[in-house]
């Protein structure tokens, strides 16, 4: 992440924290409602490839953290060179119970399946998402399975054990 970008980021956005951990591992923490503007700014400055959106469940802080993984392959004015790939993480915290977030599909079409996955597994509701239908799971669960407060063993206990095994001898002989 070159310095010119850092200064421009600081100047345009106020509540912004940039953390550098080693080479090529910078992350930007930003407020919930500034995400879209930062995303579009980053997109204009070359970070146009959204790898993935992932979600972390900070149950003790009572918040869900959404992480956009972006990367850039050519500095403005330079030729495309895969060796110059620079990755960037954009983090934001959203409350757990009214877990609601603006969908980033207008900026990145590719975000559609990621947002559906997060909606299905973390229960985050993305406004403006065209098709928030289940992606992997056959069944629906009251607390989304990937949340920490979802006790999977308990669920298995209640649901799978509850299914009776086949009563063999009940019927008459063959």
């Amino acid at each position, binding site marked *: 992440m070159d310095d010119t970008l850092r200064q421009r980021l600081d100047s345009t956005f106020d509540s912004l924290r940039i953390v550098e951990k080693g080479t090529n591992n910078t992350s930007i923490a930003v407020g919930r409602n500034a995400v879209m503007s930062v995303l579009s700014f980053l997109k204009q400055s070359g970070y146009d490839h959204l790898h993935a959106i992932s979600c972390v469940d900070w149950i003790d802080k009572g918040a869900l953290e959404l992480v956009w993984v972006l990367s850039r392959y050519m500095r403005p004015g330079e030729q495309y060179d895969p060796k110059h790939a620079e990755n960037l993480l954009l983090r934001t915290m959203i409350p757990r119970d009214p877990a609601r977030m603006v969908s980033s599909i207008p900026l990145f079409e590719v975000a559609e399946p990621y947002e559906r996955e997060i909606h299905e597994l973390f229960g985050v509701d993305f406004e403006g998402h065209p098709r928030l239908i289940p992606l*992997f799971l*056959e069944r629906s669960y009251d607390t989304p399975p990937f949340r920490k407060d979802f006790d999977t063993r308990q669920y298995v206990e209640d649901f799978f054990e509850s299914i009776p095994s086949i009563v063999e001898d009940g019927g008459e002989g063959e």
Partner: protein
Amino acid sequence: MDRNQLIKWLEAPAKMGHKYSLHAVYFCTGCGIIEVPPSITARWDAERFGVLPTASPRQANLFLITGYVSVKTLKAIIRTYEQMPEPKYTVGFGSCPINGGMYWDSYNTIKHLDKYIPIDGWIAGCMPRPEAIFVAVTHLWTLIDKDMADGYKRYRKYYSQYRANQEKVLLGLEWPPLFPIEAG
């Protein structure tokens, strides 16, 4: 082909036929399938036992489920099992179909497969080796001999229970029940 083999052939050709010609539908799910190719090629050669991979379930009588069964895969397994012609045997391959294996506490995997479709034989082990398949096959021979491999009969007899379990897990199937379910 000694004498008593011949007598067995004459007395119960169907059973002997089934023993020595087990055409298998390999249901490639989970990590078990990687064990199947070596078992049918030069090193282990399943064909010696008459075990041959077939293209469609209609042509098969052995159903090998080779790995963990997620909820979505169960729908395909039930569909394939129901499309196989009648005297059919299923073998659960590896510990996952038996009791969920290492995914025992996962919300998305089926723990006891025999609650949904009848299983005739199990091969324990978290990825049993190809020889284990042949042990299973020979074991299946003895079961067929003693008429104990009657999974398909149990399925027909207790179909209502099986169907109930299936519908409970899969919230409604897209095809009608295989056998008519009596009231209740």
